[in-house]
């Protein structure tokens, strides 16, 4: 168990280092950072002074080390547009993104599994057909378009739900449902095929022969085994959801990290982008470690791979 744990932790650490390197390189690719800090008519001597103060005269690996050191202390520099610490601004927006992604995660997991089980039990009927159609459509339609249609139908025409902002729980409904759709489709397809596979297993035949009520066979024995492959992808699904939230936040004007980053992108506000990407990437990697570890508890075979 411990060996697996350490191996997993080492892999995540390498991933985080690699991501920080990518962010660092991107920051250098966007041109000489000096241009952000010195005015255009600054003299050579002044530029050299600023360069020294920012550590830009040091070799690139030293700059990277300084950058990592500061990042570990939550210092990603100051937002160029708002003149506030970038990390602080991102942290402020984090709860909104977490709320949106987690709600969508719960919706897609719970309803995805339920719908998958129903589709498998009703295999070949129109219910199965309908559910599978929903799943294929959910994976083919762009999420922002679904969001816009939802705004059009439930916001503009029926006026049932608010479509912009985050002023109360009812504001969460449309964005969370829209975000959940893609993952819900994946979870449903996986559950359905896993349930169909367990149906032909020997132990199910045995339980039937034993005379166990069908509902117990389905919900207690078959579902438990069918859920193993579903749990394996939940970490990945959460990553998709956090990433997908970026666009959904723009569509529904949701004040999360994603919208902040897109705005920063339009303003070329690099420190804000760096802080946002690093924070979200780190949370995704950490959540994946947790999911993998809990998965290895559910399915002990993993640990001995």
């Amino acid at each position: 168990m411990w060996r697996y744990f350490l191996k997993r932790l080492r892999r995540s650490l390498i991933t985080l280092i690699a991501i920080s390197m990518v962010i660092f390189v991107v920051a250098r690719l966007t041109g000489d950072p000096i241009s952000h800090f010195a005015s255009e008519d600054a003299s050579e001597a002044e530029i050299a002074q600023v360069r020294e103060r920012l550590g830009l005269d040091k070799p690139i690996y030293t700059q990277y080390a300084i950058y990592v050191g500061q990042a570990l202390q939550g210092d990603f520099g100051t937002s160029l547009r708002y003149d506030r610490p970038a990390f602080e601004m991102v942290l402020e927006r984090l709860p909104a993104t977490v709320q949106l992604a987690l709600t969508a995660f719960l919706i897609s997991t719970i309803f995805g599994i339920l719908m998958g089980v129903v589709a498998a039990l009703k295999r070949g009927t129109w219910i199965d057909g309908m559910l599978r159609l929903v799943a294929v459509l959910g994976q083919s339609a762009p999420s922002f378009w679904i969001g816009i249609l939802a705004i059009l139908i439930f916001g503009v025409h029926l006026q049932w739900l608010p479509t912009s902002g985050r002023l109360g729980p009812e504001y969460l409904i449309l964005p969370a449902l829209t975000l959940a759709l893609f993952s819900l489709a994946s979870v449903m397809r996986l559950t359905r095929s896993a349930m169909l596979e367990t149906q032909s297993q020997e132990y199910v035949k045995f339980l039937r022969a034993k005379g166990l009520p069908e509902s117990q066979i389905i919900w207690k024995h078959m579902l438990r085994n069918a859920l193993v492959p579903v749990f394996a992808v939940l970490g990945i699904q959460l990553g998709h959801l956090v990433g997908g939230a970026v666009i959904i936040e723009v569509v529904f004007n949701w004040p999360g990290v994603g919208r902040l980053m897109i705005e920063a992108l339009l303003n070329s506000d690099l420190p804000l982008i760096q802080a946002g990407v690093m924070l979200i990437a780190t949370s995704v990697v950490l959540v994946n470690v947790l999911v993998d570890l809990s998965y290895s508890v559910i399915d002990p075979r993993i640990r001995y791979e």
Partner: protein
Amino acid sequence: MATNVPAGEPASPPGRPRTGGKLRSLPWLAIILLAPVILCGILGPLLYLHDPTIIDLLHPQRPPVWLDGGNWAYPLGTDQFGRDLVSRLIEGARVSLIIAIGGVMIAAVIGITLGMVSGYFGGWTDSIVSQVVDVKMSLPANLLIVLIGAAIGGGLVTIVVCIVLLFWADYARVIRAETLSLRERGYVQLAKVANASHFRILRRHILPNLFGTCIVLITLQIGRAILIEAGISFIGLGIQPPDTAWGLMVYEGRAYLATAWWLPTFSGLAITMTVLGTNLFGDWLRDVLDTRQSSL
């Protein structure tokens, strides 16, 4: 999906009699969905009802033909500048298809090469490739897009770079796993005994056996690439006006949701139908070519 777990329909049991002839087993829904898009992509300008870039400010936001005020000259209506929506959708088809196919092909060449090399040789090449794939897999797609956008700005190049960087790892991962098992086959071992070079073995004995997997993966990826392209254009990093792409049309139409609902609706519908078509076609290919890679 980055998973090794079977998804979708399990293979049909052997011995189940197949009903209908060859025609029946073709993916008709996929063909019906894709044929008009491919036709628009190839014929493009020949099909325009009006020049898609001509601005007619006298008739902006003309509704589709079946609504009050619509007419047959503009079957799906016009946009905020009075440009014909049908012609713009046709132009968008061309742009979206070229970008998606081009990007996916580049990603395929890179990913398949790396996957074959790392699966065949193993060792440090393999560990480096696997590690990079691992990093790529744990970074959500939209974050990568934001980073690339920050580095090189928006435009056609940005979209292609994003598609390549997002998709190569899928090929590398799948092809590596297949190469690992092909490497142990008898004919590869015999070729080695016959003193064939590594290059010859990879090209003549391993690559042909990967064909089915590659075709299925490429087909499914084209659908995903269209979605990615649409997403990038939607956040303003993709094709820049006055050029157009479906994602951009949804984005632009969003501002006129209350007065001209048809603008975002039909462009999004075009994306959905195309992606649905490629997904169904890819699923069909997977079953026909029997790649056993149900995780693709």
